[in-house]
């Protein structure tokens, strides 16, 4: 048996490695090493824990480690890059659930003294962990586009019900904290928080999904930190709060990108648009074009900007986009990608898909950078993106997306919108861009359209 002090030092080393690991993840050049550093920290923490004096039998631990490793590895190696958001949501949920179970086991093992900080942490772990688990499962179901979860379940008094559930969960926690030796309260809190997790995420729709994923990520960290308070273990507190902080930062970035307050997203405050009826009027002047007609635009083009959205992911069009990219570059055309922060279903989703097909990341430009050069762009190709290019965000203060920063493709000489139909995007509002004088609609599936375009350019 190794002394306790060695274990504490090992935890300290693990904490340092986590901090260095996350720091590494903030730069493309050091990211791979950063991730490995974090994994090494985890390995050290796990190995040190195996020598903990409280452990008297190992077979359950070994069994759990093997089952979990196999399942985790299979999930991670099999998942397609387009399904990454679901995957992250699911893993998030598992982390949250693990925190709930650890706090429960600890409560059964050694009930903390009444009204102690440990008792408070135990119930915090229950609330945060259960909300994270069920919220993440529902987010997973939504992202996976299971039919039953595609539309939010509508019921009246959305916010009041959330508030009541929250108050009940807090109330039961107070009773539990007053008498931690009655573990019944713990499970009452878990049950109430589970329902709360579902009702919180239920109203949140497609466009807000990146925010939810970022937020749940933050929660899973806070759940781990709360468990750290229960166990009096610094490595849990440190790594949990690191994750909590990173999640909140990403949530904030996503909210800014949509000009929404975190409160509105959190509590599913949806502004109902009244413009939907005017779609016919907006779309009176829509022009559509064929692949051959669009191919001619590239004869004289010098700069092309491609703006991908979730439609590109759904159509699995990223490989076709790579072909288009290489073809245009081989003809001396500068090709850049304009990436809106909330394009896709999780923060940075588009960047991952484009990296998958080896588009160099210096070709991916952020909102401000791309907007600054769009008026010197010959062709802007909007591929399966809707709301992030909708000029109504700038011109109509009553629009649900009013004030949201957009990629201003309308400033380009010609805009080509690849889209299956004129159906509205997640925000459910018509897009006047589609009827702009310099816009050509190319109605087709995203992948088919790009392939046809590549073929047409080669022929011309």
């Amino acid at each position, binding site marked *: 048996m190794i002394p306790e002090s060695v274990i504490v030092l090992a935890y300290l080393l693990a904490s340092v490695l986590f901090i260095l690991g996350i720091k590494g993840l903030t730069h493309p050049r050091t990211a791979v090493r950063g991730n490995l550093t974090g994994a090494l920290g985890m390995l050290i923490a796990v190995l040190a824990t195996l020598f903990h004096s409280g452990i008297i039998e190992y077979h359950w631990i070994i069994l759990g480690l093997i089952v979990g490793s196999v399942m985790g*590895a299979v999930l991670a190696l099999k998942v397609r890059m387009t399904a990454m958001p679901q995957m992250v949501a699911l893993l998030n949920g598992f982390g949250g659930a693990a925190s709930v179970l650890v706090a429960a086991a600890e409560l059964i093992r050694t009930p903390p003294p009444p009204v102690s900080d440990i008792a408070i942490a135990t119930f915090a772990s229950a609330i945060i962990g259960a909300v994270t688990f069920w919220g993440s499962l529902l987010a997973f179901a939504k992202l996976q586009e299971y039919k039953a979860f595609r539309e939010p379940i509508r019921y009246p008094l959305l916010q009041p019900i959330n508030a009541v559930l929250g108050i009940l969960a807090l109330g039961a926690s107070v009773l539990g904290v007053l008498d931690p030796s009655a573990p019944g309260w713990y499970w009452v809190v878990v049950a109430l928080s589970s329902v709360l997790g579902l009702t919180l995420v239920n109203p949140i729709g497609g466009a807000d999904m990146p925010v939810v994923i970022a937020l749940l990520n933050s929660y899973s960290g806070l759940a781990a930190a709360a468990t750290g308070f229960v166990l009096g273990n610094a490595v849990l507190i440190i790594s949990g709060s690191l994750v909590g902080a990173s999640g909140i930062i990403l949530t904030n970035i996503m909210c800014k990108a949509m000009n929404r307050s975190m409160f509105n997203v959190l509590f599913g405050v949806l502004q109902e648009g009244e413009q939907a009826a005017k779609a016919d009027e907006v779309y009176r002047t829509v022009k559509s074009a064929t692949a051959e007609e669009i191919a001619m635009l590239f004869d004289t083009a010098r700069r092309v900007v491609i703006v991908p959205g979730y439609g590109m992911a759904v159509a699995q069009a990223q490989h076709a986009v790579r072909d288009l990219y290489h073809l245009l570059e081989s003809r001396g055309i500068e090709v850049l990608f304009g990436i809106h922060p909330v394009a896709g279903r999780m923060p940075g989703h588009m960047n991952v898909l484009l990296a998958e097909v080896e588009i160099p990341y210096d070709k991916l430009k952020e909102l401000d950078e791309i907007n600054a050069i769009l008026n010197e762009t010959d062709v802007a190709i909007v591929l399966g993106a809707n709301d992030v290019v909708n000029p109504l965000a700038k011109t109509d203060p009553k629009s649900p997306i009013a004030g949201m920063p957009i990629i201003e493709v309308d400033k380009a000489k010609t805009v080509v919108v690849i889209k299956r139909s004129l159906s509205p995007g997640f925000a459910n509002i018509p897009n006047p861009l589609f009827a702009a004088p310099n816009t050509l609609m190319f109605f087709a599936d995203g992948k088919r359209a790009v392939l046809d375009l590549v073929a047409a350019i080669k022929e011309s």
Partner: protein
Amino acid sequence: MALTIFVLAIFVGFEIITKVPPTLHTPLMSGSNAISGITIVGAIIAAGAGHSTLATILGTLAVILATINVVGGFLVTDRMLQMFKRKS
């Protein structure tokens, strides 16, 4: 003491992460998510403490879930980052 660590760690987190480029938002999220699987430490202790059957079952379940979180998280992050590394 624990509260001090908590607050300081949050500050460290904010200091490190504020300037992360959008390219890395997804890997950062899945990588930090893997780190939140640190609950595995508590899960291992709960599963091996040999207290009661219920505590052992809860602990073992927690070990499984936390391990999926950890192994899946680090592996999937590495897969993503390998794609960023290649440059044509």
